[in-house]
């Protein structure tokens, strides 16, 4: 089945105010940067964004915060972003902080048809408040609910016309999980190839989870913390 759409603007067609979006990436690594730029252009507002991080002030989801398009963020770590902090402390932005592993599993569960699960993460902390607790193997666990989204937007290294995806290195992170949890999943890829060009043994996300795929026009791939060692 051919999932190709011509460009980012067609790919994001149907995203409207008040929708819930999942956006892949960890920090600025593996984020759908072309789609984020397009969301700024579209000007859709009151978005609920599920993403591990919130970008930095002038890149990634930070761009959508600058334009105040986000009503609520569901994330695990949101440092490195002054505008985020300002909006959160002033109450303009709703924020739901979730342990990273629970966030990943909630996306996976949402895509896998599992409505909820118990995890030990967060027991005895403020994030367990109001959540059901059960003891398994002598240890307390809290109930966490699955997450889904109107649109999931993911970024892959390579993809084919069928929507099969391959990620590179640590840019995989949340992308395959969110791809499963979107009612409509959009994949932006660095390299789009014909069906049959990718080895089926190497596919990370099978095309069934992807409804629309396009090749991103340009990838900045910013590095947040450039750390190097020197040759001796």
């Amino acid at each position, binding site marked *: 089945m051919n999932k190709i759409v011509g460009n980012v603007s067609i790919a994001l067609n149907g995203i409207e105010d008040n929708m819930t979006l999942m956006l892949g990436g960890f920090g600025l690594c593996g984020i759908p940067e072309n789609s984020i730029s397009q969301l700024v252009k579209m000007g859709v507002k009151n978005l609920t964004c599920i993403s591990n991080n919130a970008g930095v002030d002038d890149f990634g989801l930070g761009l959508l915060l600058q334009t105040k398009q986000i009503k609520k963020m569901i994330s695990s770590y949101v440092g490195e972003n002054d505008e985020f902090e300002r909006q959160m402390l002033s109450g303009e932005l709703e924020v739901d902080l979730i342990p990273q592993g629970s966030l990943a599993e909630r996306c996976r569960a949402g895509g896998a048809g599992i409505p909820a699960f118990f995890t030990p993460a967060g027991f005895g902390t403020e994030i367990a408040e109001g959540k059901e607790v059960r003891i398994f193997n002598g240890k307390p666990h809290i109930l966490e609910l699955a997450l889904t989204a109107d649109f999931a937007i993911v970024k892959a290294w390579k993809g084919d016309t069928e929507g099969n995806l391959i990620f590179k290195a640590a840019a995989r992170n949340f992308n395959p*999980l969110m791809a499963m949890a979107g009612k409509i999943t959009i994949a932006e890829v660095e390299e789009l190839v014909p069906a049959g060009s990718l080895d089926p043994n190497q596919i990370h996300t099978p095309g069934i989870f992807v409804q629309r795929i396009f090749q991103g026009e340009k990838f900045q791939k910013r590095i947040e913390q*450039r750390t190097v060692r020197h040759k001796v």
Partner: protein
Amino acid sequence: MALDKIGIAKRIAQELKDGWYVNLGIGIPTIVANYIPQGIEVEFQSENGVLGMGPFPFEGEEDPDLINAGKQTITALPGASFFDSATSFAMIRGQHVQLTVLGAMEVSQNGDIANWKIPGKMVKGMGGAMDLVASADNIIVAMMHSNRAGESKILKQCTLPLTGVNCVKKVVTELAVMEIKDGKFYLLERAPGVSVEEIISKTDGELVVPDVVPEMKI
């Protein structure tokens, strides 16, 4: 003399055992990787999806797609693997990772840890810390004994929002190595030249002190 950050990392590195998979947090824990004892093999897991993490890349060889959980550019060693975040936390929650080393703002005598939030001041989020401390069998905390105001961070009870309860097994500070057992801190070792009296005076939680407290060998 009290240890510096590198000293703390070196002392923690002595806890590493051959064949372990280890998750190192941001800050002092990251430095531990530089001091693996000779003759043992350990593999480092980074919760954003890397097993077999190597040192920082040489200048000019940075790959934006290859970072650690602190968002620093890294390399992958031969035999490394990459995976998604759910698989990564399956390794952690499923106790396939033998040791977690992380920093803390406060630790209490029953093994509670606080390291993610200062109400009204700092709210960056917990990242993977809550998953890590809830599941790891073996958790070592690397931290300073007191805060900048000179108040002890080794407490009877944490005052900041908790990251996890009843989970820390060992604490290494610039002054001491302490084990947490049965709701008490047990002083195991002191930093070279640091007196037991100084450690007692800077520890707010209940501290069990044996007759002889050996110096750390760094």
